[in-house]
């Protein structure tokens, strides 16, 4: 197999797994709450249905509204070429490090917020302003937690960080790593619109953030945005799984190693999904005004992670 093929293969695997991950979390959550729940493959059916449906666009909307879904989807797919999902080092790993990944994801968020404002509906604007508040608070945490990891590995390249933990297994339990994991987990909840920050299963106007922005979308545009959101969740999960516990990631490119990597990745995703389902069953949504408190707590965790890795150098 040619090495450069690994990038597209990885992106294809991520695209295929992403809706399943969302479906699995929904199913686990339903079982935990003693509901029957829809089957885990429900999101695939929803995507197929949405792609077949007619698109309705408000007459007030500009070209931005039509372009945004493609930008959001495109930037998220690009990220999957840079994140070590299956193997390290990646063929396109040299093209971007952890900072590029974070800002590509933010680029999607930014255009989604613009598209929420564009048709001029009141909910879109409200959702966009809330999303930007959350993103602005979550971003410094993410950057700091990354520095904690990069400091230990001596590089911000994702493959290098994973390789370093692979070669020194005791690093995985170093205080800096553990704290950075906690910080990035909280950021994941905020960035992917999970429970204490945003409720993914409600369409109640006053509480929604992500859903409010995409309220005006329909048909294939909505399908692209939903798919990109699922992909973003998968990217954050695999960052958590493969940067902090990179066992199973292939370091030689053979079909067997790649299959093993795909299997362990699926296991890690399911485990993290289970944690999310448990958390979402256990806690209620925070009031919007308390969200900055949660995010500044995660910022403090990231800060302590940096100082711990700094001290142990």
């Amino acid at each position, binding site marked *: 197999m040619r090495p450069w093929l690994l990038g597209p293969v990885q992106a294809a695997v991520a695209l295929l797994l992403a809706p399943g991950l969302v479906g699995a979390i929904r199913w686990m959550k339903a079982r935990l709450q003693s509901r029957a729940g829809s089957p885990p493959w429900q999101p695939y059916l929803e995507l197929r249905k949405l792609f077949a449906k007619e698109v309705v666009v408000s007459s007030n909307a500009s070209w931005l509204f039509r372009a945004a879904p493609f930008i959001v989807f495109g930037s998220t797919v690009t990220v999957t070429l840079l994140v070590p999902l299956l193997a390290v080092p990646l063929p396109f790993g040299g093209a971007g490090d952890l900072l590029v990944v974070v800002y590509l994801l933010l680029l999607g968020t930014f255009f989604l917020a613009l598209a929420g404002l564009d048709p001029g509906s009141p909910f879109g604007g409200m959702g966009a302003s809330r999303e930007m508040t959350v993103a602005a608070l979550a971003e410094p945490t993410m950057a700091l937690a990354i520095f904690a990891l990069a400091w230990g590995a001596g590089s911000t390249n994702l493959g290098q960080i994973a390789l370093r933990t692979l070669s020194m297994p005791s690093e995985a339990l170093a205080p800096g790593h553990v704290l950075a994991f906690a910080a990035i987990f909280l950021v994941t909840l905020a960035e992917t619109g999970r429970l204490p920050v945003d409720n993914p299963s409600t369409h109640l106007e006053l509480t929604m953030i992500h859903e409010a922005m995409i309220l005006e979308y329909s048909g294939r545009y909505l399908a692209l945005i939903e798919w990109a959101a699922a992909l973003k969740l998968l990217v954050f999960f695999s960052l958590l799984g493969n940067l902090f516990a990179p066992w199973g990631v292939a370091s030689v490119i053979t079909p067997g190693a790649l299959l093993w990597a795909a299997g362990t990745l699926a296991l890690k995703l399911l485990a993290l999904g289970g944690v999310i389902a448990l958390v979402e069953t256990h806690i209620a949504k925070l009031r919007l005004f308390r969200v900055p408190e949660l995010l500044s707590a995660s910022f403090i965790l990231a*800060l302590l992670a940096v100082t711990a890795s700094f001290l142990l150098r």
Partner: protein
Amino acid sequence: MSPEMVSQLSVGGSTLVLLGGLMMLWRRGVAAHIGAFTFQSVALAATMAMVGWFAGDWQLWAVAALLLLVKGIGIPLLLKRMERRFGSERELEPYVNTATSLLIGGLLVLLAYIVTAPLVSVSRLPTRTGMPLAIGLVFVSLFIIISRKKALTQVLGFLMLENGIALLAVLGTHGIPIIVEIGVFLDVALGFIVMQVFVYQIHETFESIDVEQLNRLRE
């Protein structure tokens, strides 16, 4: 245990102890504050036991056990009794809001790094890596004392300050003689009892433990 592992463990342990202090800044409600203090004391006792094991010093084990008994079990029980008594005043409103005080807490920890840099470079012990965090906890507890309105929270801040000093002593010198430690414990216990009486008196006089009320004179 290898020295690298000890320095990792002491950073990990002191980070947990410091997190107990920062949890105070984050959470509202007395019950959560008492929980944070208990967590901190248990983490401190574990760190002490770890250092005792590494240094092969039975006295540190004894101090750790005593600390677990007094601050991990005894004082939290007394605090819970106080909380039941002032049950109506659960919501504690600070002078500085939560997000800002967390950020100030972070800045204080950074300040502690700068201040302790010369101190750390003098020490040869593998446990020295945790010392900046101990000083950070001292700063954070002082900030808790000045930024909260309720007398009960201020008492908790004082107890955390004491934890910070104990942590610094263990990491910086591998513990002081046990006689001194017992003296310090007696001091803390007495100080706590005096403060408890004080808080009750404040409550009797003003029907509130909000120290804002103290600038009002009463017959």
